[in-house]
């Protein structure tokens, strides 16, 4: 075997090893993403708000609706924030604010700090600070 052929073979083997190493990294990342999605309760078949609406593209439930001061609950909003963030669609600050600020508007005892704390948790979840 000539030196140039041997060199080419070595080079090809190194490329092959490199490819397998990179593939293993991608595979591990996909597994990790899958675990995160399962943990976040991601449901790919969940309906979305149709295009053309202000909230177009966002996940929605099949029945009922929420409003800022009534049925909006912390769990629902935080779950949505976590789900969107975990799915890889990073929400920007303004969208997180839009999502979380209704928690400050919920009826509560005048001296209560509950809404503020829930808002804090929601923003952190949305911005992935605490994930």
């Amino acid at each position: 075997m000539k030196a140039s052929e041997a060199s080419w073979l070595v080079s090809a083997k190194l490329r092959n090893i490199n490819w397998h190493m990179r593939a293993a990294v991608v595979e591990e990342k996909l597994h990790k993403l899958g675990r995160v999605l399962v943990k976040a309760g991601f449901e790919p078949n969940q309906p979305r708000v149709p295009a053309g609406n202000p909230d177009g593209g966002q996940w929605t439930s099949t029945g009922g609706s929420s409003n800022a001061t009534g049925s909006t609950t912390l769990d629902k909003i935080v779950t949505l924030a976590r789900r969107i963030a975990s799915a890889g669609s990073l929400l920007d600050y303004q969208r997180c604010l839009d999502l979380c600020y209704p928690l400050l508007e919920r009826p509560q005892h005048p001296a209560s700090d509950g809404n503020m704390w829930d808002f804090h948790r929601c923003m952190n979840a949305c911005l992935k600070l605490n994930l």
Partner: protein
Amino acid sequence: MNSQLAWEMIRVSFRASRELQDLLPQLRDQCSPEEYKDCAHGIARAIHGINTALIDKALASHPELESRIESELAEVGRID
């Protein structure tokens, strides 16, 4: 930062946020919906600023204080 100072930061932060939050009903009653939304977002941004600049910092130094916050909110509904 010692634990006592961290708790003081948290306590004052909650108080400041509470004051800001108390504005919301007045704004809702007296402003147009557009004005209200603009001001409510401003209040939310301010509260978030306080939270990240002070509360998160205090909790980063003393994570055990988070359970104290949770228990005080569960018991009396506020941080004093």
